[in-house]
Structure formats: structure tokens, C-alpha cells
């Protein structure tokens, strides 16, 4: 089976509309960032406390907001997660506070949730938000009174089993009723009645808590950006060494183009830039670079074979020759990433979103951004050469078509 057989599309003929489109997209992304007042960084890159909470039904957002704003100092944001996989989850966050207030805010959040929505007045332990050791501590004495004789290790194991049962999907941290615990091996009706007597079931479960101090957030951000820039620089040098410097520049510009558009889309959809998204951006840079190099490699090879061919048609030929490979690879990687986007769950969502977008743009940029840059440079340099007073002979014997940098002097 073959889809593309000896294709001969004139890709570079339409370079201007595509370059125009790239510019429009980049500018749109950048202006979206400006309009939103910079990027929306995830909690890991700013400072504050953030709590992800899952509810057993639609979360009562307004009620949560009003309850929390009374108890927690500073601005409190309550935002629902809209992803398919994270139904009924909300993110509660506060921003900008010192380390001391952070811990206090976190405690206040949890206490307020317990007091407003849980059964805190009864003095019972909230089973849905308790650790195994807390559960064990709570039921030790009542179990003895109820005539259930368990040794300490047995009790610890029981508590751990109860917790694991609670956390296993489909419950995923939210036990709807104590009666379901009958499915845990070793649990009998006496144990369940003790649990009912000692514990309550809040309608929510705290999935994740993040607290980021002022120093850490900015440090992480700087380090991630610097590492990426250095990595791009390193790739530029390698490609310049293997090909010619303009190829390195073109590849890096194409990568920056992809990154800007992807980040722009994050801004447009008002999604947060988290550390995980940074990992996705790194993946996207790697992918786009790979794609670009494959095409450049073909150009390099064809430069050796077809010395008479004008550069534009040579590049076109190279893109056409690699087209089948480009479509196959992109298509397959795209499939993997779409699977991740659809089934990967909330944690991977921002990540896979970046990659779904990034693979399309990365593939596109190799053909319509990186290749035209090489073409433009050579056309310009050749033009200079022709008008230059002292003609420099074209270096045809070189494996790579060198643009004569001497002509610039």
C-alpha cells in the first residue's frame, strides 16, 4: 500500500500564503498573550496554594467560593476543570503569599470545605479524605469495644485495604456509601457499623495540593526557559556543523515558530502553562527538529546529485521525496498523541493538548517555514554574488551548497 508515489507538488510556489499564515498565527498568539496580560502560568511557575478537589456530583461552585472567601484571606479562585476525563473536579487557588500564609491558607481551605460540605460538627472522621493511619487510629478502640479482635498489624492492613479500595476506580477516592466496603476482604458487618459510627463521608475528595513559595516559582520558570534556549542553541550549532549555518538558523526559527504558536493557542484557550506543558513543548521542539532535519538531509543529498537544478525546484523535489515519510511519521505520532489526549486522564491533558497542536504545526513548519528560509537566504546571497564586483566562483564541489559568506565582506 502506498499513498504518495512519485508526487510532484509545488510546495514552494505557495510559500507566501503559508508564510503569511504563519505570521498571522504567531502574531495572533502573541497578541492573545498581551491581551490576557501575559501567559497564564500554572501554580508551579507562580506562587500560592492550589487544591484540586473532586466532587461526587456537579461541584457547588458558588457555595464553595462564598464559603472560602469568608475564611481564606486574599483572593480565592474556584475554577471547574472542563476536560472530558476530569468530570466534577474543581481547582481552588490563592495567589501570592509568603510561605507562612501558604500553609495556613491550605489548612483553612480544607477546614472550610469540611465544615461547609462535610460532617465536621459530628466530630466524625472524614473517611474520604483520611489517610490509612488516621483511619486505623480512629477505629482501634471502637473495634475492640464492638468485640472485633484485631492485632495491630492486622488493623493497619485493614485500614490500608480500606483506603486502597476507596482510591481504586470507579470510586477514585470518593466512597459513596460504607456498605460498599463489604467487598473488601476481611470486612464484616461489625466493622462497617463501627466505620459508620466513627466516620462520615464527605461529598468531595482532595486529589492534589500544591504550594509554591515565591522563590521557587520564579526559579523554576527561569531554569526551564534557560534550559530550552540552551538546548536550541546546542542544536543550532550541531546542525550548522553538519550542514551549513543557515540550516541551523532555519531549523531553530521553525522550532521557535512552533513554540510561539502553541503557546499562543494555550493563551487563546486560556489554558495554564505548567511544568508538564513545558515537557510537552520540549517534545514538540524535538519532533519539529527531527522533521526539519529529515528534509534538510534530503536537500543535502540532492545537492550532490542534481547540481544543475535550481535550488527552488531542488527543495521542492526533496520535500516531495520525503512526503510519504513525513505523512506516515506525523500521522502515526499524531495517533499516539490523540490516544493520550482522549484516554490519558486529567494529568496528561495539558501535555497531550500541546502535542496534538504541536505535531501538526511542527510538520507544517518544516516544509513551509524552515525550507523557504534556506531558499530565501541562498537567493539573496546568490543575488549579492552576482552584483558583487569581484566574482567569487561557486563552490560546486562542496558536499553542501555553501553560500559564499565571503561575498558579504
Amino acid at each position: 500500500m502506498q499513498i504518495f508515489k512519485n508526487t510532484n507538488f509545488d510546495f514552494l510556489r505557495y510559500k507566501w500564503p503559508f508564510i503569511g499564515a504563519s505570521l498571522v498565527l504567531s502574531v495572533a498568539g502573541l497578541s492573545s498573550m498581551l491581551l490576557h496580560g501575559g501567559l497564564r502560568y500554572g501554580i508551579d511557575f507562580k506562587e500560592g496554594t492550589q487544591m484540586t478537589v473532586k466532587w461526587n456530583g456537579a461541584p457547588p461552585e458558588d457555595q464553595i467560593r462564598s464559603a472560602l472567601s469568608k475564611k481564606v484571606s486574599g483572593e480565592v479562585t474556584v475554577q471547574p476543570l472542563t476536560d472530558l476525563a476530569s468530570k466534577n473536579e474543581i481547582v481552588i487557588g490563592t495567589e501570592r503569599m509568603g510561605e507562612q500564609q501558604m500553609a495556613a491558607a491550605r489548612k483553612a481551605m480544607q477546614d472550610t470545605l469540611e465544615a461547609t460540605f462535610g460532617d465536621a460538627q459530628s466530630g466524625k472522621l472524614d473517611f474520604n479524605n483520611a489517610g490509612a493511619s488516621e483511619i486505623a487510629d480512629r477505629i482501634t478502640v471502637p473495634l475492640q469495644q464492638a468485640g472485633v479482635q484485631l492485632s495491630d498489624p492486622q488493623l493497619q492492613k485493614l485500614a490500608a485495604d480500606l483506603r486502597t479500595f476507596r482510591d481504586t476506580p470507579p470510586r477514585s477516592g470518593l466512597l459513596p456509601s460504607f456498605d460498599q466496603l463489604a467487598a473488601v476482604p476481611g470486612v464484616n458487618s461489625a466493622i462497617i457499623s463501627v466505620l459508620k459510627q466513627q466516620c462520615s463521608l464527605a461529598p468531595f475528595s482532595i486529589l492534589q495540593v500544591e504550594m509554591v513559595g515565591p522563590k521557587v516559582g520564579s526559579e523554576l520558570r527561569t531554569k526551564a526557559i534557560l534550559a530550552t534556549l540552551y538546548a536550541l542553541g546546542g542544536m543550532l550549532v550541531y546542525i550548522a556543523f553538519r550542514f551549513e549555518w543557515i540550516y541551523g538558523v532555519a531549523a531553530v526559527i521553525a522550532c521557535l515558530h512552533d513554540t510561539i504558536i502553541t503557546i499562543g493557542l494555550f493563551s487563546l484557550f486560556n489554558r495554564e502553562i505548567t511544568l508538564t506543558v513545558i515537557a510537552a513543548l520540549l517534545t514538540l521542539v524535538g519532533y519539529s527538529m527531527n522533521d526539519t532535519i529529515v528534509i534538510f538531509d534530503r536537500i543535502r543529498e540532492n545537492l550532490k546529485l542534481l547540481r544543475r537544478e535550481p535550488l527552488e525546484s531542488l527543495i521542492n523535489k526533496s520535500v516531495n521525496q520525503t512526503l510519504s515519510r513525513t505523512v506516515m511519521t506525523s500521522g502515526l505520532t499524531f495517533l499516539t498523541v490523540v490516544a493520550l489526549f482522549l484516554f490519558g486522564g486529567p494529568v496528561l491533558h495539558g501535555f497531550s493538548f500541546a502535542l496534538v497542536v504541536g505535531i501538526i504545526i511542527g510538520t507544517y513548519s518544516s516544509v513551509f517555514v524552515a525550507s523557504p528560509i534556506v531558499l530565501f537566504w541562498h537567493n539573496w546571497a546568490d543575488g549579492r554574488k552576482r552584483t558583487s564586483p569581484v566574482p567569487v566562483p561557486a563552490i560546486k564541489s562542496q558536499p553542501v551548497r555553501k553560500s559564499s559568506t565571503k561575498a558579504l565582506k
Partner: protein
Amino acid sequence: MKKNVTGRTVVIVVTILVCVFGIIGFPKSGAGLVDNLKHNIRLGLDLKGGSHLVLQVHVQDAIKTEADGAIERIKEEMRKQSIDYAAIDRNDPTTVEDADKIEIDVKGVPATKTTAFRNLISERFNLWVLTPVNSTDYRLNMRPSELVTLKRDTVERSLQTISNRINQLGLTEPTVQQYGQAGTDYEILVELPGVDDPARVKEIMQTTAQLEIDDVKEGPFQSRETALSQKGGILPVGTKLVREPPQGDRTESWYLLSKAPIIRGTDMRNARAGQDDMRKWNAQFTLSPDAGKRFGRYTEANIGNRLAVVMDNQIHSVASIKGRIEDSGQIENIGSEQEASDLALVLRAGALPATIQIQYENSVGPSLGADSIHAGIVAGLAGLAAVIIVMLVYYKRSGVNAVLALVLNTVILMAALSYFKAVLTLPGIAGVILTIGMAVDSNVLIFERIREELRSGKAIVSAVDAGFSKAWWTIVDTHVTTVVSCAFLFIFGEGPVRGFAVTLTIGLIANVFTAVFVSKVIFDYELSGRRQLAELSI
């Protein structure tokens, strides 16, 4: 090269065996296999749940304590040598950055005693540098080398204390290590995989040492049951029942204590073994200035009430308050000198030399972790299945090569993670995905090249050879470029970015082996002895 298919096959089979062993070991049963797998492939906190904390050690606390000690001793020495002074004070640096600005101000030393005072400082307090402010006032600064040592020691002692405390919790594979740049950051990284109530651990880390002094509410009771039955089965809010173990001719007894301790281990500054007037051994402890004031106020207001010294959740002794106790106290009636000095050691080790502040926390609940793993596996399998189906449909028999190479690549990657004891995190999975993408790409590149060569009329065997050799440099360039970028990410990046770089680098190296070497061997094997093959299934 073509002839030596057997030799190359041996290399491949050995690699597979080594890798499979690395991932699953020698399982004895199905359950053993799952256990080994779980043990060998370590999942990061973001995937399996747990807490990741970055703590800052407030080194200025230790420096201030050192300065306070010096002030006390200077005062004492000056009294002994009858050098007068008006006041000796220190400034109060409040941040880690300001820690070096510590200074002691000595005021009102008579001009006649200048030489004596200078000699005293240079002989007995050589950690400090003396600068005269005017004829009677002086300023003491700590030597820079001494500051460096003191700060380093403080971080090390804090690290030691925190890891001692965490180890007592019996968590699996906790990590406690220095973080950031030594010498400027004073940070400690704590990773607690699978911990299900991080709030409790944080409390233990920051506050609880082995020692507590609690208010005694009621007691003694003969047993837990009698205590409970008197209370109607449920303990009053804010109290706990603690056991006093039998000692000598006394049987065990239980006390009802206040849950919130009056003095905690973190309030301890120092401890040593000593003897009382009756030559019985005791452990004498000193409290931090803050705790000392608190304890003074409390004891003054509660004369006649009882206090319990609780060690490791067991009552060591119960005594009534006879008068105000300030910043030092003792645990009496210890059997031997050995026991007393052991106890002092534990008290000292349990004390943090400086305040610890949490700068960063990420606690992932176990249910989110479980969901993530589940979702990740489903997504990974779905993606892989899609890739395999398309490869098989599009490249037919040759697609099998690609699929084998891809699977082997994943196996090698997992084995490398297991052998290097690396941790698979979410960004690591990103690296795996890019690896799979590039592995597919390498195969596609080669196959497309072979097709081209076939179209241009070459014979099958030479088309395969040409396809591999022409795609080779492309593969080298793409891989080396990415490895170069990984090197930079690893050197300059942090945590998650590094995880990405490590998995990707391993994956790419594995890929050069599988996509080029292994795939070629399979082709050679299929083609060997069948020179007259009419058609290649590609």
C-alpha cells in the same frame, strides 16, 4: 557483514534476555511477576501519588543561636576579668540572605580596659573579628569561613534530623537530600512516595521530635479499658490516652493527656546527661528562648498541676509543677549513665538546629495517582495498537520488522530505567512518546528509502542495503541533534526537565540499535538464501 546473521542474532537475543531480566527478574508466579515489575519500574510521585517538598533551612536561626551563646560567654568572661561594659547585643537578621550580616555590639568598655578586652576576644573568641566603633564601643563580626562552616553544618544537621524522623515513619523509599546550590540555597528536598496524609508527615517533620511535655488531665488508670469506660467509651476532644510502662515494682498505668503538647522536640536546643544531688542520672535539656518563655508562663500559671514527659508516645515520668520553670529542665530517674547519655543524644538529634520552612509542596493523592496510571496505560496501549495496525497495513510483512523493533525499543528503555534505578515520571513519559515517534520515524525513513530504490529498479537485496545505508546518516543527524539538546536540558534543567532528557536519551540510543541494527538483521535473515526473491513485502 551480511553473512554473519547468526552472530548478530546472538547479540540481539542476549540483549533481549538481559533487558527482560532487568524488567521482571525471575518471577516464580504471576503475582511475583507483577511484584517484580512494580519494584523494578519505579513510578514518580506524579504518577503514583505522594508528596514532593522543598524545605528551606533558616540558617540565620543557627547563627543567631551561636551569637547568643557567644554573648553569654563574653559576658561571663568579662565579669571574671572585671572588665565593665554597658551593653552587649546582637542584631536580628530575619532572612537567609541576611544571615551573614550577624554582628554583636559591645558598648561601654572603659578605655583603660581596651587591651584586656581585645586580648580576651582574640584569645577566647577567635571565631569573631573585632572592629572598634569608637573608643568604648566595638562590633564583632563572625569570620566568613566560620559562617560558611556553620551554615553548612546547620543544613547537614537538619537533613540528618529530618531523615531520622521520616525513617521512623516506616514509609517506603523516602528521599531526603540536599537541594539547590550548596552554599547559597540551604534547601532540602524531601520525596515521600505513596504517603497518604502528607499533612501529618509535614507536622512530624517540622515539629514533633521524640520528646513532648504534656498537660496531665486525668489518671492514672489501671488499663486503657478502665479509662475508656470512665469516659463513656469516647475520649474527650483534644485528649489522648498514653501508657506509662511498668518500671521497678510499679505496674503499667494510663494517663489522659492533652493532645497538644506544651513543649515539643523542636523546642529543644541542647541536651546532656547529668547527675542530681542524690547521684542519680538524669538528662538535662535546654529550651529555645521562645519555648523557654512559653514554658515559664505556663508553669507559673499552673503550679500544682501535673506534667508528663512523653518519649516516643510513652510516658517517661509524671511530676507536679512546683514553681516556674524557664528555659531548662531535666528528665529524672534514669537507670544508668549509658541510658542518660543515650537519651540526651536522642533529644539532641531530635532537635532541629534551625526553623524549617516549606517552600514548595506538591502532594498528589493516591486516587489521582491510581487514575493517572490507569489512564496512562490505556492511552499508551491504544496509541501503540494504532501504530502497530497502521504499520502492518501500510508496510505489510516489513511492518512486522518495524513493530518488533518498536517493541524491543520499549523493552530496552524500560530495562535501562530499571538498571539505572531511574524514576518514570510524567515528563519521562513525554520522553517515551518522542522516542516512539522517532523510532517509528526511523523505520519509516528506511522503508520509504527501500521503496524508492525498488522503484528505481534495483534488485531486492541491494535495494534493502541501499535503503539502510542512505537512511543511516539522516537517522544519525536527527538522533544526535536530539541527544545534544537533551544534554543541555540535563545540565541546565531541573527535576521534570531532566527526567525528560534522561528517558529520551536512553530511548534514542536504544532506537539506533533496534531500528537500524535489529531491523537489518531481520531483513537479512528473511532475504538470506532467497536471492531469487521476486517481491519484497513492503
